[in-house]
């Protein structure tokens, strides 16, 4: 599959802060690629170097076979950009914003159609400042699509957006991909990355610490499942260790959490082993459930649980 973005050994320093250090990644054509990481990990700096908005201190960036620094203008015509925390004049109307941005490109899309697709057609004459958070984000997605770009950048697309609007935006991003465009995005929501991205790069301290599809990262890096239940009466937790695949057992208030691996397909799932054991031991319980590891577990495993900022 052809690559649309190649970043190698990217480095960017602000004063004494090293924002990005020796970061390398590739994005394939047609995929939704996500960069995830804690605040200050270097996601925005990286995406802005790729967009050509920032000049890397060293390293190489190629986007659609162009150099974002030397061929910035050509690149601008081919890519669509949604930036974090940028606002248009508050007294600008939605339709005017589309009309304006369409006039910046030689061959723009029909923005009235775009407006309809985004569910903003009734907001055409509304001031941008009167839009809800979700509508504002849809507007910024729309403006990023007005030049029919091959490659679209989204930086923290759903920050400050309620869950309903978030799901609508995810659907929109999937549609954008289905039209054959490549999406390069950053997010700090693990759920978003897991549901939306074909591949993710986990970034921490300006570096890629893991890269791959969310499922493969989970399989590789956080293979432990959890069984959580609440026993009616206290019992000796050590008996759970009799199960071979159990690695350790934790207690959280009334709740018991059993950690274990069940990777092999031949092996019974952890939950059935736990249920069997509890019934042979005569332990009664309620609310038993199995929790699969998620990208968030991988993320916390790699970046730690310490507070940032």
């Amino acid at each position: 599959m052809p690559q649309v973005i190649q970043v190698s050994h990217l480095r960017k320093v602000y004063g004494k802060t090293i924002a990005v250090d020796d970061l390398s990644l590739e994005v394939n054509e047609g995929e939704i690629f996500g960069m995830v990481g804690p605040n200050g990990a270097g996601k925005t700096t990286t995406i802005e170097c790729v967009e050509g908005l920032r000049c890397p201190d060293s390293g190489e960036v190629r986007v659609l076979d162009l150099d974002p620094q030397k061929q910035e203008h050509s690149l601008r015509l081919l890519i669509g950009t949604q930036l974090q925390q940028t606002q248009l004049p508050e007294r600008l109307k939605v339709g005017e914003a589309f009309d304006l941005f369409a006039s910046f490109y030689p061959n723009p899309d029909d923005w009235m159609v775009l407006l309809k697709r985004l569910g903003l057609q009734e907001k055409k004459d509304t001031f941008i400042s009167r839009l809800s958070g979700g509508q504002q984000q849809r507007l910024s997605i729309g403006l990023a699509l007005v030049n029919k770009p091959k490659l679209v950048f989204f930086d923290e697309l759903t920050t400050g957006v309620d869950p309903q609007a978030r799901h609508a935006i995810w659907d929109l991003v999937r549609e954008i991909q289905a039209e054959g465009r490549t999406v390069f995005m950053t997010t700090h929501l693990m759920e978003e990355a897991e549901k939306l991205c074909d591949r993710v790069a986990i970034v921490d301290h300006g570096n890629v610490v893991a890269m791959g599809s969310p499922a493969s990262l989970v399989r590789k890096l956080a293979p432990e499942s959890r069984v959580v239940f609440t026993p009616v009466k206290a019992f000796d937790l050590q008996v759970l260790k009799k199960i071979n695949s159990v690695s350790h057992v934790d207690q959280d208030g009334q709740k018991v959490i059993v950690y274990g691996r069940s990777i092999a397909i031949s092996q019974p799932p952890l939950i059935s082993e736990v249920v069997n054991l509890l019934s042979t031991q005569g332990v009664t319980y309620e609310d038993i459930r199995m929790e699969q590891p998620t990208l968030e577990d991988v993320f916390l495993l790699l970046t730690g649980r310490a507070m940032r900022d």
Partner: protein
Amino acid sequence: MRGFWKLTWVEIKLYFRIPIMAFFTLALPPMLLLLFGSIFGNVPNPAYGGYGTVDVSVPAYSALIICLSALLSLPITLASYRERGTLRRYRATPVSPATVLGAQLVVQFLMTLAGMGLLVLLGKLVYHIRFDGNAWEVLAAFALSCLSFFAVGLLLAGILPSVRLASIVGNVLLYPMIYLSGATIPSQIMPEGVQKFSQFIPLTHVVTFLQGLWRGENWSQHTTEAIILSALLVVCSLAALKAFRWE
């Protein structure tokens, strides 16, 4: 080019949607003209070389409008676009900085021109003002004054990091200038010391320039003003070019 005209048109609409600046450039000066016109009338006054208060006020207030547009409207608008990230968003499109700044300058110029137009219209209709100059020469001097003052405004927009600071510095520069330059209070009634000091205020030269051409003098009699304003234009434009930041 299509982007430039669209942006200019959008900026004109925005200018009237947040009408604070429109008030200063289009409403306040005519109100001042009517106020002082009703107090002093427009009878010929030897202190003004035989012209009336309104006759000399129209070019003076035009200088006032230039100053308001250049030191408040222009830098505050640009600073707010930078603060909100609007400039950054434009930067992510193919439009050049020249397009973004050019549109803003065209709008400020048109509004300043409209402000002067209103003063002239009002003066003609209500006070039958005397105009002995050449309209083209006046317009050329007006344009030069606008350009050099707008260059100051662009420089302010470049070096002042926030809207707050832009409006504080703009006002601090503005008030002494408009009161000491003769743009609001005729310099003829000021003490001699103040008149001498006011020679160091750029706006004084705009007032002198416009009032002189208004009375029928020509550019060759105002080379000092033309040179000072041109120098201001060149120096501040170059500095503004260096100071400009998208974010």
